[in-house]
């Protein structure tokens, strides 16, 4: 024993090479830029150069001055809607699909592949494809609705205050359901089969099995997915940007915090930049997401204790 230990100690300094490359790459290309971006929120800017350190002035402007405070609240509320709707359209649907595929069914592999397919497409492709599908005059969706006698449901989907945000969320979910379905399937497969057998022998019907055994057993996975969905809903950018542009049109009805950030930090086609204010939005976003992530960590820790 002692001999081996000594040998290990001799080589020990080499062990730090394990952590070095990851720490270095991540530190230089992610953490440093993030911190630097956060610090920008304490400066005033002239165009794109830091001018003065102004403390919390950017945050005060953001929360008290028009039009920023209205934009902020509007975008913030949309992130919440994004979250709640995604829980239904993505999590619940993917859980149902996972449960069905996990049950006795033919063609499991086909359905799994089919549902996962959209995840392979680029947001660019998806955004463009759905802009056309949802087009009011010649889009496939409205044409289809008319063809099956549901004219009453046709809408200018992406041009209506009440449907634009929902449409974007549906498209996002369309692309993401396959992935969360696989995570749930993984959770389902991990449940010991003997538990089900025991339950059936006790005479439990399939609904009892579902609600008394299956759902509680994948509870942790559901919890983690919910928090991940929360983070995703607050970081969401690509779909809104690709489909509705950086101002989250029409009339800001799809504006979220990241698009609001984007407009301020990079300017619009004819609007100037406000990097300091934009960075303040980013910092607020950091804080919101940081709090949610702490919840994830807490859940993970508890799961570890349970084992």
């Amino acid at each position, binding site marked *: 024993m002692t001999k081996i230990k000594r040998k290990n100690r001799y080589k020990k300094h*080499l062990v730090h*090479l394990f952590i070095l*490359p990851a720490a270095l790459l991540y530190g230089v290309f992610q953490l440093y830029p993030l911190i630097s971006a956060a610090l920008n929120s304490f400066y*005033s800017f*002239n*165009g*794109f*150069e830091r*001018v*003065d350190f102004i403390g919390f002035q950017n945050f005060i402007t953001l929360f008290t*001055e*028009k*039009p920023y405070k209205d934009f902020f609240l509007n975008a913030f509320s949309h992130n919440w809607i994004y979250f709640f709707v995604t829980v239904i359209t993505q999590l619940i649907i993917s859980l149902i699909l996972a449960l069905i595929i996990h049950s006795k069914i033919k063609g499991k592999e086909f359905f799994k592949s089919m549902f996962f397919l959209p995840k392979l497409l680029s947001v660019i492709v998806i955004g463009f494809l759905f*802009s056309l599908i*949802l*087009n*009011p*005059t010649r889009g496939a969706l409205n044409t289809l609705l008319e063809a099956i006698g549901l004219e009453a449901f046709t*809408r*200018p*989907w*992406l*041009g*209506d*205050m009440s449907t634009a945000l929902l449409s974007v969320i549906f498209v996002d979910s369309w692309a993401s359901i396959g992935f969360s379905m696989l995570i749930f399937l993984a959770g389902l497969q991990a449940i010991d089969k003997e538990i089900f057998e025991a339950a059936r022998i006790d005479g439990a019907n399939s609904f009892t099995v579902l609600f008394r055994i299956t759902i509680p057993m994948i509870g942790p996975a559901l919890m983690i997915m919910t928090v991940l969905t929360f983070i995703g809903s607050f970081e969401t950018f690509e779909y809104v940007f690709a489909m*509705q*542009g*950086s*101002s989250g*049109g*029409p*009339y*800001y009805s799809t504006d979220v915090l990241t698009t609001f950030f984007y*407009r*301020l930090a*990079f*300017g*619009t*086609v*004819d*609007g*100037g*930049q*406000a990097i300091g*204010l934009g960075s303040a939005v980013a910092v607020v976003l950091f804080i919101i997401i940081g709090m949610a992530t702490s919840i994830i960590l807490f859940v993970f820790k508890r799961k570890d204790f349970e084992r």
Partner: protein
Amino acid sequence: MKEKLLLGMFFILFSGVAAGCGNGDSSGNSNEDAVELEMYSWRTEDRSAYEEIIAAFEEENPDIKIKFNPFEATEYNTILTNALVSGTGPDIVQLRPYTGARTIADNGYLVALDDIEGIDNIDESYLEAAQGSDGNTYGIPLSLNIGLIYYNIDIFNEYGLEPPETWDDFIEVSQELKKNGVTPLSVGGREAWLLSMLHGVITPTAYGGNDFVSDVTEGKADLTDPRMMESLDRMEELTEYIADGFLALDDADSQALFYTEEAAMYVNGDFQLEVLENSNPDLSIGVIPGFKEEGSDDPLVMNWVDGSYGVVEGTEHEEEALKFMEFMASPEFGQLFTDNLSRVSAVEGVTASHDTVKQIMEASEANSTPYLMLVEYGLGSPSTKGIFEDGLQGMYLGEITKEELLEQSQENAERAAEEGVEELEMIEED
């Protein structure tokens, strides 16, 4: 052994990556003697036309090569900002008109062009679109943009309609078209900037044209003025005649409605003429450059200076870049530009061979008014133009009233003006 192998691989991998880094630098000194200039633009659609123009320049100046590098218009500002702040990359850059160019010039990223040969070929008022707060000119304006109503001559003939000369004519024509089941007007309202454009094309005769503009510049009127309200009344009245669900259509969609002859009229800048002609060569396109004011023989045409090109301060090849600027200010370039792109050049003395372009050019020379929103309200983050056009979407959707729209826009204009003052003071402190 294994261990050493692994460690060795590890170092080779990372040193290899590090060593590789230096090779891909973009400044790219080619082996030839010619100096290569890099030119940034947002006109991806004009790539081939630009390349022809550049070829003409390179023929005269064999020791200079120009690489035309266009980016997506919506991302251009970000890319340009990054490139300028970093001080590497392009030698020649395309500048957004008015406040866009001014911001960049005031930050000291551009070379003043007041002394270059041929700059007097360009009208003084056009140069204003590319001037800094110090009054120096930092960009050579390329073209004059003109907002228009395009109309389908065949459809108009079919129903015996004349192109409208006044707002009242326009309503009459639209009613007639609508009665016959033709969508009178197609507008891509999903892209808010097109609503500003629509406002600029349709309403100058409602807000009183140049009188109102000069009242604004002199501070005698603001956006809450009753004349502005009249222009919004007109915008509202228009709703009936625009394609259904137009707030869900982008520009490409609304163009398609026009060139597939479902809609009889389409509003946009003259720069879309070539696109429309290419999309459907059988289409007979007419233009209505604007409406007539009472007691005037010439329609009031909204025009503005489009992007200009400037030279980046500190470029290694300033001399060569300035040579290209001189070329851009020359009538030769103006002619090439007009011929290749069917656009109206900012250089004086250029004649258009394309009949429609000629018609547009003459109308604009006869009687014109600036693009109010762009020229007077482009300032701020967000800009008042942005607030106004997004607000127009809100108005069409019934989210805000016309009064609220004007109030919000005016509020933002005041805020933006203050913002601008602060910036200037800070520069003086430095």
